[in-house]
Structure formats: structure tokens, C-alpha cells
């Protein structure tokens, strides 16, 4: 009823605009990649082709021109993807003309990736290469048990670092989860603004990798487990809050309504109507996160977050592969054990 019929013509214009933009970008990409990789690298065999900003610019012009012509035909990826080109029941979308543009993009991307990542099977199987690999693998399979104790202590540090980061994050995320739940917050403008602000903050802090946080904090508080813990803490608050609030958003309104009807106070409504519905999913997700954070903590150690990752980094820097082998075994064992324990616990409380 609410003006959806009036929207229809405007809607098509928007869809066409979107299709056009997508077509321009697609053709520009095809032009640029064809020139840089197919022409310069493969046909001319240039080792280090020059880059000028004019190249993407001209590609863009070519894209614009091609898209402008082809938008009137069925050769338009945008028109296909945004549903302007209708697929009849007896047709298959993957055989349509626009689909072939898609295949071309994928093929070009594949070739480009091959060149960009300098995949060289020759190097992979070269005698020196194989010899190096053999040396490392021999060392890795002959771990130096003398550092077992050292590695174990570092591992314990890592596990506790992950644990304390999650543990401290839980109460914070628990409270924030309510404020980030749409169904509790969209009642009035003030709360809805809080909701939107919180969401924005969390999306930003979650999109920054814990690795980056660890680098920031290792400068701030110095290299060590504390920096790692802070990095994981920031990340867990954001991801737990998001998960918790989604859990709250998906609960059944019935019990809340029933508890409200008894004349309960809002705090009692939350405690009796909301909390019983969310504890188990919360617990399950939190254990799952802890498991992930132990793994993350290992990686974070590599950039100065302390723990076993840090140790691994030191030995790797000195090319002491027997020691590295020992640490890899310890890490593998922990990851396996955590994985097993966490899935067992989650299974049990379901």
C-alpha cells in the first residue's frame, strides 16, 4: 500500500543505472587486465612493464564506451545480474550471453593472479628448492625436545591470554549486547541513535584485524602478552556484542509479553523474559570464540603479542628449525585439543 506502486518506474531507472555502472567497471577491468597482463606480460614478454596512471584512465574510457553501446544489447553483465534480462523457465542463466562476460572476467582474473603471485612451478620443483624443503622438513620432524618445557610455558601463556581476553570481554559484551539489539532499541529516537552509534563502532573495530590491534598495542604497552590480550579483548568485545545482540534479536517475544503482563519491572522482564532464552546460545558462542582466540593468540604472538607465537617468531628468525618443529607440534596439539573440547562442550549444552 505505502507507495510501492509509485516507486516502480523510479526503481527501473535505478536498476539501469546500477547495471550501467557495473558494466563500465567490468569492461574497464577487462581492458586494463588484457593490456597489462595479456599484452605486456604474455605477448611482449616484458619483465617489468611500466605503469602510468593513464593506463587505468584509458581503460575506464574504453569501459565507458563499450558499456554505453552494449547496455542496449543482451551483452550486459549488469542487466543480467540485476534481473533486467529475464530468464524463462526453459532457459538456463549460465548459457545467456551476459554469462559469457562473467566467464571472461573469471578467466582473466585467474591468469592475472597467476602472474601477480609469480607462481613458478620451476622454482617449486627446482633442485635447490627441493633441497631446502627437505632440510626444513627433516628438522621439523626431528623436534628439539629440550625446549619442550619452554614451549609449553609459552603455550600456557597463550591459552590464558586468550581466556582472560574473552573472560573480561564477556560482561562488557553482555551489557552492550542489549543496547545493540534492534528489537529492544527501536522504541524511540534516543535509544535508536545509541543503537546505530554502537553498531558503527563495532563494525569499525571488528573490521580491523586483531593482528593490527596487536601491533598498535605492542607499541602502546610494549611487546608481551598484555598487548596481545588487549588486542583480543577489543576484538572479542566487538564480535561477542554483535553475536549476543543478534541472539537477542531472534528471541521469541511471547515470554517477554507474558512477563510484562504480570506487572513485572523492566529489569525483571529482561531477567525472566530475555535472559533464559539467550544463556545457552551465549555460552556456546563464547566457548567457540575462545577456541578461535587461542589460535588467534598464536598468530598475534608473531607480531609481539607474547606467548608461543612470539617464541616461534624468535626461533624462525634464527632458522632453528628443530626448535620450530617442536613449537609447531605443541601448537597443533593445543589447537586440536581446544577444537575437540569446545565442540564437545557445545554439543553437551545444546
Amino acid at each position, binding site marked *: 500500500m505505502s507507495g510501492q506502486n509509485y516507486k516502480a518506474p523510479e526503481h527501473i531507472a535505478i536498476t539501469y543505472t546500477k547495471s550501467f555502472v557495473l558494466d563500465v567497471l567490468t569492461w574497464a577491468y577487462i581492458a586494463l587486465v588484457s593490456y597489462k597482463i595479456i599484452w605486456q606480460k604474455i605477448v611482449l614478454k616484458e619483465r617489468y612493464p611500466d605503469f602510468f596512471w593513464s593506463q587505468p584512465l584509458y581503460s575506464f574510457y574504453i569501459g565507458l564506451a563499450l558499456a554505453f553501446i552494449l547496455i542496449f544489447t543482451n551483452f550486459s553483465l549488469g542487466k543480467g545480474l540485476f534481473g533486467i534480462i529475464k530468464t524463462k523457465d526453459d532457459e538456463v542463466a549460465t548459457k545467456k550471453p551476459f554469462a559469457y562476460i562473467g566467464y571472461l572476467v573469471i578467466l582473466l582474473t585467474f591468469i592475472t593472479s597467476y602472474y601477480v603471485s609469480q607462481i613458478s612451478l620451476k622454482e617449486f620443483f627446482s633442485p635447490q628448492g627441493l633441497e631446502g624443503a627437505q632440510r626444513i622438513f627433516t628438522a621439523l620432524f626431528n623436534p628439539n625436545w629440550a625446549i619442550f618445557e619452554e614451549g609449553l610455558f609459552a603455550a600456557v601463556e597463550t591459552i590464558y591470554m586468550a581466556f582472560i581476553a574473552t573472560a573480561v570481554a564477556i560482561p562488557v559484551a553482555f551489557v552492550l549486547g542489549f543496547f545493540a539489539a534492534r528489537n529492544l532499541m527501536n522504541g524511540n529516537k534516543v535509544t535508536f541513535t545509541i543503537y546505530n552509534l554502537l553498531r558503527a563502532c563495532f563494525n569499525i573495530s571488528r573490521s580491523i584485524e586483531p593482528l593490527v590491534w596487536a601491533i598498535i598495542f605492542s607499541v602502546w604497552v610494549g611487546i608481551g602478552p598484555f598487548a596481545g590480550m588487549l588486542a583480543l579483548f577489543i576484538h572479542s568485545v566487538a564480535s561477542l556484542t554483535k553475536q549476543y545482540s543478534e541472539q537477542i534479536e531472534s528471541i521469541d517475544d511471547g*515470554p517477554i509479553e*507474558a512477563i510484562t503482563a504480570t*506487572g513485572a519491572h523492566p529489569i*525483571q522482564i529482561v531477567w525472566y523474559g530475555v535472559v533464559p532464552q539467550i544463556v545457552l546460545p551465549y555460552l556456546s558462542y563464547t566457548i567457540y570464540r575462545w577456541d578461535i582466540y587461542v589460535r588467534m593468540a598464536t598468530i598475534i604472538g608473531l607480531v609481539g603479542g607474547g606467548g608461543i607465537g612470539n617464541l616461534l617468531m624468535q626461533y624462525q628468525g634464527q632458522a632453528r628449525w628443530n626448535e620450530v618443529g617442536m613449537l609447531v607440534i605443541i601448537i597443533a596439539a593445543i589447537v586440536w585439543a581446544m577444537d575437540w573440547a569446545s565442540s564437545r562442550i557445545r554439543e553437551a549444552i545444546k
Partner: protein
Amino acid sequence: MLEIKNLNKVYPNGLHALKNVSFNVPQGEFLVVIGLSGSGKSTMLRCVNRLHDVSGGEILFNGVDTTKLKGKALREMRANIGMIFQHFNLIPRKTVLQNVLSGNLSRTGIFKSILGMYTKEDKERAMKYIEIVGLKGKEKNRADALSGGQQQRVAIARALMQNPKILLADEPVASLDPATSHSVMQYLKKVNEELGVTVICNLHFLSLVRQYAHRVVALKGGVLIYEGKPSEINEQWFKTIYGEDAVEVTIN
């Protein structure tokens, strides 16, 4: 005891769900509200205990207009009105006893209720109501593991725990099979007759209405179109309320 005067409800999306609805409910009555689905029955009940805010008109509960109440006064009003629902709305994963005790939240301090500290007297009362609804021996069972009819009886006990003057029932038997429906209706009747609680109940089946209602009001498109004895609903009224094509089905 309950006087509804020119009640209007307009939802935020502009839907006018109740239009100038007026009727009275005397103390001790078993009133049944009928009407097609979407006619505004649930909306009406939710206006009475203010689960929905009212857009216009008055609802006098023992002489006090409840439509403008806020905060503590609103909660005290709600405490005097029990409610049961089509889907029972029990607290998941809690026992029957815990569910019934939650009916007493309005009289329990916030701190005590969070810690689950109920008085011995409260517990005795809860046990009494569990016995009244025929669930003695099941108080330690998880409520969500019971059958539909049993869950609805737990919901009745929870409402009784409030010591309500009025019990609102929103299609309490709509998701139950016929035999269980009758048993739940019998318990509502018992609550009405033996404990003297006024009951306002939304129902779908006319056969149940004839059996349990003292009086009937009918809604159609948010307008009150009928008010009278269940025995007075003849063929003519039936077609007016439910539409020309409706056929009466009975449930035994």
C-alpha cells in the same frame, strides 16, 4: 468492574484496529469475544492490560482510567490482570514451579527476583495453584517439555499467582486439540466460578462459546457489532459476524 468507553486503537503503521468499542464487564462474568481473525480481538485484550497503548477512549478498571497510567501505577494495574496466550509463552528451560512463581514478580523485589529468592509462603501458594490446575507432581519438570494442554495450565497457574481480579485469555485453546481444549476451558470455568475471577476470553469456536460464555461480544473490522447471550446468536447473526459463506463447525 471493567468499563470500556469509545476505545480506539490506531497502530503506528496507520491501521485502525479498534473503532469506538464500548462495553462493560461486571464482576464475576465469563465474557467471550468472538470475530474473524484480524477483527481486533487480540488488540482489544492487549489494550486492557496496556501491552498496547491506547489511541483514544477510556478503560475504567474499578473506576480508575488505566489508559494513561505509567511506571509503578501501570505495573500495579497489570498485576491485577492475569493473561494467558495462544502459544502459552512460558519461560523456556525453567521448571513448572519457577514459571508459576514468575507470576508473583510484581510483588517481589528486583534484587530478590534476580537471585530467585522467593518466600516460603510464595512457594506454598505456587504449589496450591499447581494443584488447582491438576499438575501436582510435575512442579520440578521443565515446563517446555510438557504437552500443550499442560503448558496452558501452567500458564493459568502463573496468572493465578498474580491473584488477579480479571483473567484475559487470548485464544487459549487455538493450538490445542479438541479434547484438550475442553479440559483447559474447564479449568478456566473453575477459576471463574470457584475463585471468582472475571474472565475475558477470545475464542474461535462457537460451540465452545455456547458452552462456557455467560455473555458474548463480537468484533468485525474493529467495530463491536454484537453484544448478548450466546444462545441469542442465531443463523442470521452468525452470517453477519463470520461472513455469508461461513459454516458452523462444532468441536466435541
